[in-house]
Each structure stands twice: as structure tokens, then as C-alpha cells.
């Protein structure tokens, strides 16, 4: 989490100061913008994982800002900062997938708000992992086909938090390909090919048959 960055957008300097003060011990970097325009400039130049924005701001509202970000940077996790009086607007935004969570105003030293932001950072990491895995899948499929043609016995291990990939892989891989640690242990001596941060391929060397 220490390498994560959260961008806060609020037109009131006093609120930005409060946020900085309230979250000073949190384990992520904080950036601040005073308008939607400034927020977009920062996102254009810097890697941002989570954005927390006020709703009511001059020129560009928080929801308009999040709408743009949803299209341009869908992996940035979006949180809205809002009062209860705006709940109908918020519900619409939530139902249209514009925002991940909302934090209620007025700001106070609030553990729940801190947890919402931490959750958003974790969710952001998961999005990145899944994105990486999807990219890796293409090379994995090619690699599996190559091994299969060579008649190699092999298994595939995918990170636990991306287990949904198994089903996709199963459809693409030869029947009975081991995909769990339990099944892989039956392979005996294996070579391990680390295909990516999230996917490993275990190959039983041909010499093991002889």
C-alpha cells in the first residue's frame, strides 16, 4: 500500500488541509487538486490508484470528473465525498458504476472513511493483477499449445486471488492438465517456468519418464 497514490479533489483549501491532517499516518501517498481540471492534469502526468472527490465544485462537478475518468482511466478506483442531501444523485452514480464507494461529509476523524480508502487501494491492486493476468493468458495459451505438441506433461499454477482464470484456462488447455497444487504434486520432479508474476507452469522433464 505504501507505493499507492490517492488523489483528493476539493475546491476548498480548508477541506484539503483537513484531509491531509486526518490521513497523515496512512500508508499511501496523497496528492491534492482544487478542481476537476487540475485533477485531470495530475492524472495525465502521474500514476494515481484511487481518486476521492467532492461532488459540488464550480465548473466541473465531482460526478462529471468521475465520468471522464471512468472512460479515460477505468482502473483508477473512484470514491465520492458527499453529504446525505445528495443521496439520490449518488445512488444513480453507484448504479451506473461510476463510483466504487462514497464517504459522507462532513469530514471528521473517521475510521470508516480510512477503511473505505484502504479497501479502494486493495481493489485497485486486484484490478491491476487481473489486467496483468489477462495479458499473460495469451502467452500462456501459446506456451501450453507448444508444450502439448511436444508431448510434455505439465501443469499450471495461478495465484489464489485470480482463481477465476482457471475456468478460462481449463477450456483452452488439454484435458486433465493439473491446475492445483494438489494435482501438481503428482507430477513428481518438475521444472518450473515462471511465466509472469501470477502464473507458473510446471513441466515434468521428459527424462523423468525414462
Amino acid at each position, binding site marked *: 500500500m505504501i507505493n499507492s497514490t490517492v488523489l483528493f479533489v476539493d475546491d*476548498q483549501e480548508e*477541506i484539503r*488541509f*483537513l484531509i491531509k491532517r*486526518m490521513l497523515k499516518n496512512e500508508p499511501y501517498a496523497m496528492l491534492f487538486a482544487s478542481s476537476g481540471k487540475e485533477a485531470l492534469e495530475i492524472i495525465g502526468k502521474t500514476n494515481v490508484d484511487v481518486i476521492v472527490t467532492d461532488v*459540488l465544485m464550480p465548473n466541473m462537478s465531482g460526478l462529471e470528473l468521475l465520468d471522464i475518468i471512468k472512460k479515460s482511466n477505468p482502473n483508477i478506483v473512484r470514491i465520492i465525498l458527499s*453529504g446525505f442531501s445528495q443521496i439520490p444523485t449518488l445512488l444513480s452514480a453507484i448504479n451506473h458504476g461510476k463510483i466504487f464507494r462514497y464517504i459522507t*461529509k462532513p*469530514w*471528521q476523524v473517521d475510521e470508516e472513511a480510512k477503511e473505505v480508502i484502504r479497501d479502494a487501494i486493495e481493489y485497485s491492486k486486484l484490478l491491476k493483477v487481473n489486467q496483468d493476468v489477462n495479458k499473460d493468458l495469451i502467452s500462456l495459451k501459446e506456451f501450453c499449445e507448444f508444450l502439448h505438441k511436444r508431448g510434455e506433461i505439465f501443469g499450471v499454477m495461478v495465484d489464489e486471488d485470480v482463481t477465476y482464470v482457471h475456468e478460462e484456462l481449463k477450456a483452452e488447455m488439454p484435458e486433465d492438465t493439473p491446475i492445483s497444487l494438489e494435482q501438481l504434486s503428482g507430477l513428481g520432479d518438475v521444472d518450473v517456468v515462471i511465466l509472469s508474476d501470477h502464473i507458473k507452469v510446471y513441466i515434468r522433464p521428459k527424462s523423468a519418464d525414462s
Partner: protein
Amino acid sequence: MKYDIEVDQDLKEFIPIFKENRQKDIEALKLALAEKDQEKIQFIGHSLKGVGSGYGFVEVTNIGQVIEAKAKENAMGDIKLLITQLEDYMTHVKITYVEED
């Protein structure tokens, strides 16, 4: 007593700016009321609500919340009373600075 408040010591240097900004809000509210600018009043109420309690001025948040709601209802008579209430509060509030827990 709502006029006696405790504020964390580390906010002390920001309090003069806070009070100055509230004075600006009061003037802006008076002007918006004269111009019957409902949207502007609602916006200032929203800002007051957001900023007050974070600095220990819970009453500012409370008044802001009511101003925002009344502006939505276009209850301009109530807004006038609320501005007076806010002005009175900001004039008479007594601050004690305390060390943070």
C-alpha cells in the same frame, strides 16, 4: 454551551483563516439572499456543512446543513435568520485550544 468550543492545538494557526473565510461566506450569503440566488446559497450552505466540524466548529456545520436544506426549499425568510445566527456564533465563539488525543 455552543459558543464554547475546543479545538486541537495543531489547528491553531489555521483558525484565523477559518474565521476570515466564514466572514466571507456570511457576506456572500447576504449578497446571494439579496439577489435571491438560491443555488449560490445552497452551495455556501454545503461548504459550511463540510468544513465546520473538522475544525471543531460543529455549530457551523449544523447551520450550514440547515441553510443548504432551506435553500433547496427556497425558504428565504429562514435563510435570513440562519445568516444572523451564523454571524452571531462566529462573533461570540470562544475557543480553547487542547492537545490532540
